[in-house]
């Protein structure tokens, strides 16, 4: 475990040095994401100038959800998405060989090798936005809730990761897997909404069968609405189970890997 943390530090530093060589790229990436955030804030502002709450989410509760969703999305994108995104290309060209021949867990290496620092800086914007909304709600600080929030935040990233990773693993069987990225963003759109807008059946489906609600609604609920302990443990159990599932998918996929060109 320690070895992996140490390795990760090296990856991170390596990417930092690389990124410094392309400073403009960093700045543009950063502003692009900010513009996206601004777009959703305009949308938010327009809606809430007409209503006081949506599905029971008041103005600042929903703003908190946007902030958390943005922070989770950015963390995921800058640490894991950049790597998952390349996976289908690695499989198609046979470059995956390089990763398989290193003496560490191949799934770890393939998923964490690169860090996108432009996105990384944006995480703090999401956190800041959530912090601002939370401040506006003037709720009491509760260390237990904060700890649960942190755990569920990471849990949400894991579920995002498993979804994206599994979609990319399809490349083991489908050669042209280009739409997977687009699909990922369209599917996670389900996670970014307050679960209360869905009707009962859909909400149950998105909690238990396709647990998108766990990703962002759960951490947001624990801070600005309410989340019961059983829900909390359920959320974590789902995250861990899915993470385990991803290792199975990876192993089965590798069996069909043809290692083209070598």
């Amino acid at each position, binding site marked *: 475990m320690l070895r992996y943390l140490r390795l990760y530090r090296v990856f991170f530093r390596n990417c930092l040095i690389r990124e410094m060589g392309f400073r403009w*790229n960093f700045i*543009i*990436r950063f502003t*692009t994401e900010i513009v996206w955030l601004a777009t959703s804030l*305009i949308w938010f502002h327009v809606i809430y100038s007409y209503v006081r709450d949506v599905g029971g989410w008041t103005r600042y509760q929903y703003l908190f959800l946007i902030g958390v969703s943005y922070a989770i999305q950015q963390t995921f994108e800058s640490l894991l998405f950049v790597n998952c995104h390349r996976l289908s290309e690695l499989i198609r060209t046979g470059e995956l060989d390089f990763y398989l021949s290193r003496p560490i867990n191949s799934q770890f290496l393939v998923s964490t090798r690169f860090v996108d620092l432009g996105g990384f800086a944006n995480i703090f914007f999401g956190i800041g936005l959530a912090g601002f909304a939370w401040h506006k709600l003037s709720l009491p600080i509760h260390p237990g809730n904060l700890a649960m929030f942190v755990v569920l935040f990471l849990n949400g990233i894991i579920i995002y990761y498993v979804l994206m990773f599994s979609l990319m693993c399809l490349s083991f069987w489908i050669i042209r897997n*280009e*739409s997977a990225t*687009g699909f990922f963003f369209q*599917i996670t759109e389900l996670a970014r909404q307050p679960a209360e807008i869905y009707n009962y059946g859909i909400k149950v489906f998105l909690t238990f069968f396709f647990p998108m609600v766990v990703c962002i609604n759960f951490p947001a609920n624990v801070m600005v609405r309410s989340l019961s302990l059983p829900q909390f443990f359920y959320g974590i159990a789902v995250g861990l189970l899915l993470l385990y599932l991803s290792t199975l998918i990876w192993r089965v996929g590798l069996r069909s890997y043809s290692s083209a060109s070598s």
Partner: protein
Amino acid sequence: MHLLRPYKQVASVAMQEALIYRWNMFLQGLVGLIPLFITVMWWRAVYVARGNAPAMGGYERNEMTSYFLYIMLIHQFSSTFLIDFDIAWSIRNGHLNKYLIKPVEFPLYRWVYHIANRAINCLFVSLPIIMGILLLRNYIYFPDNWRHVIVLFAMLLPIALISYLISFCIGMIAFWMLEISSLFWIFYSLRAILSGALFPLSLLPRPLETAICLLPFRLTSYFPASLLLGKLNGWQILGNILSAVAWIMVLFLFARFLWRRGLRRYDAAGI
């Protein structure tokens, strides 16, 4: 007529190429139902919260959800997503050379290729969307004036052309600046807001709405959707059509100007 013959070939090739991806398109249409579904659910919740003051910006609930459905349908044909990236890419790595030495005009070539591709796309994407419409029929306002539908079909090509010309101009920035693709995402955000694809422009304060309507972007989303919803009277429809014609001319001249200036600067990488 023989001047146009190469373009007929281009269209045919583009269609054959698009057909290779028919399953992909079908799947994309299927997954594309998710945002549509969320839109319906979202506005349902908003209108529940509105209680006894239902209409927002002149839109009832079903009109609002249909607004987004119609934009989604129209975009299947008129969307120029990634065209600007493609053009910038061709300019940057000298891919353009290939077309400059052929007896075709690249901007026209790209347009024919694009529109033929979109036509096939519509064919396959519409199947899952029709399924979605049947499932969500309780939330949908169907156009009740067939004249509006005819006007819409007549306007599809001009709408797509406006969208294309805008994307083409944006892509041509690559003549002057290197590595600006990330900037294009910013333009997408802006276009989503200014065209009314994010929300109907009538939700905005009046002065802002009027200002945005002076730009060409609304012609690609806000105009066709509000047309189908019967929000426009005869004079407004005529005004929009004339404005579309005028904008096509302006954008065309501007694009031609940029294209000529750009080619002079073009360094034809790779030769």
